[in-house]
């Protein structure tokens, strides 16, 4: 059974085409990762699926109905942006408020314990740490005993322990038969949770496949070194020279380094670094353009990505 579906869905904001004829089907029992760099269209797709926005063309469906019809959302759980929790309300009050919208909500204590914030019931959300707020925000998606939850970047900015607590809760929900659509720009997160991953870039679906298959595509490394001239090397998808330094993007850094040493080429200052998703996809799709925010996609700035 298909719980959420996008059928050639496009969304335009003025001149910007945020989503370009996207097809997506989320079936009951799946845990699907939606992977892509910032500005790729993940949030726009999520917003269409929960009825906050209307597609400019194409269709979206939730439980077979229009997501903009409240009845279609009865079995769906969504996470608010954690910065948006009403700061003066207590944690317990926020949960009670959301619970009031559902016929059979999870009891407050049980829900908060599941996310490791049971001791915060009386605290105002404005006084919580970023991690606590994030956990509360994710917990809210599960209040109404949903069959499908849509989690938009649930663990961005969390420390490792908090992230694992959340992952456990999401896995437990999935093991009980729940369906999850989770967006992230961390491949690691998608790898840890999902079997199936949908890669989005520049508003289009670039890949819809198993995690293993996608890891092969995005597992691009950047090998950089100082050398005058390089021979032909295996697995290089792109070469560039910046300030005298050679940067090679490759799908197999081990093989490349081995070949480099074997050829006996003189080089110094070898570095192997992961690339950002943006870089990986720009390399793969061969589209040379500045990233969405107009800044260069630097691998160093995103240590945990990919």
């Amino acid at each position, binding site marked *: 059974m298909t719980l959420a579906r996008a059928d050639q869905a496009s969304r335009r904001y003025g001149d910007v085409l945020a989503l370009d004829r996207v097809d997506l089907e989320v079936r009951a029992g799946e845990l699907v990762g939606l992977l892509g760099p910032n500005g790729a269209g993940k949030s726009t797709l999520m917003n269409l699926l*929960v*009825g*906050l*926005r*209307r597609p400019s063309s194409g269709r979206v469906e939730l439980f077979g109905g229009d997501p903009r019809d*409240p*009845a279609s*959302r*009865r079995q*769906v759980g*969504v996470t*608010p*942006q954690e*910065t*948006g*929790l*009403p700061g*003066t*309300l207590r944690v317990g*009050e926020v949960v009670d*408020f*959301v619970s*009031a*919208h*559902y016929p059979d909500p999870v009891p407050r204590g049980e829900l908060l314990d599941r996310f490791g914030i049971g001791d915060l019931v009386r605290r*105002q959300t404005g006084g919580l740490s970023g991690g606590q707020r994030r956990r509360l925000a994710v917990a809210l998606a599960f209040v*109404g005993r949903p069959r499908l939850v849509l989690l938009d970047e649930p663990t961005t900015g969390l420390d490792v322990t908090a992230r694992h607590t959340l992952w456990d809760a999401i896995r437990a929900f999935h093991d009980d038969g729940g369906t999850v659509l989770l967006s992230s720009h961390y491949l690691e997160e998608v790898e840890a949770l999902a079997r199936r991953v949908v890669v989005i870039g520049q508003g289009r679906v670039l890949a819809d496949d198993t995690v293993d298959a996608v890891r092969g595509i995005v597992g691009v490394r950047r090998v950089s070194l100082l050398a005058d001239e390089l021979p032909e090397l295996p697995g290089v998808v792109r070469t560039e020279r910046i300030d005298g330094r050679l940067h090679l993007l490759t799908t197999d850094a081990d093989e490349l380094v081995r070949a480099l040493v074997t050829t006996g080429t003189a080089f110094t200052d070898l570095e192997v670094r992961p690339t950002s998703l943006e870089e990986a996809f720009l390399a793969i799709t061969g589209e040379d353009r500045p990233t969405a925010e107009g800044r260069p996609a630097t691998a160093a700035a995103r240590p945990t990505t990919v």
Partner: protein
Amino acid sequence: MQLALVHARYQLLEIIRIPVAVFGSAFFPAAAMIFFVVPFAGDDAVGATYATASMVTFSVMSANIFQYGVGVAEDRDQPWNPYTRTLPAGPAPRFAGRVLAGLALTYLSLIPVVVIGATLTAAQLTPAAFLLALGTVAVISVPFTLMGLAIGYSLPSKAAIVVAQVVFLPLAFGGGLLSAPGDAPGFIETIAPYLPTRGAAELMWSAVGDYSVEPLALVMLGVWVVLLAALAAWAYRRDEGRRFS
């Protein structure tokens, strides 16, 4: 309806947790009572009753313009608001809840004025007239609620605060709220009937005393309600179109 009450309850909670916000809309009319009404009309039962009714009108106006104008504009900045629309309810309960909460807060902000009127002046009211006045407050809330909604839905929060502040004083003075009925300076008597504050004040005066309302002010009040409703509806639709379509 049940959900509207839930939304109203939590919106009230949010506001009451920052008591200064409640205090704000009650302060100016209460201060005006103490500085203008108590010393000048305090001993005259009829005059004090009318003056108290004027201050009640003033309070209703400022409470509504600020609550809706600034409250709605601030809400629109918060990501919490779109989140509530992903719950299986849609925007209606939240809107209804806001209006209920607004009305509750309006009554709350009247307490200081009424208490001052009852204890420090000679103002007098029969229980029946008091109930009638309570009902009239809900009626005269309508134009100012609409005005607040129009401001809140059409402006960003920083601009909404300024506009709310700029609007409410001229409306109070121009409508003749700070003088006894028929006793305002000449030019104010001329413009007053054309302002929504005057029609509202006349309704309050007729609720608390032997006062017959001026038809022109009432007709104009009706015109204002229609105009402000159209403006508020336009601003609401435009905002919906920008953020949720």
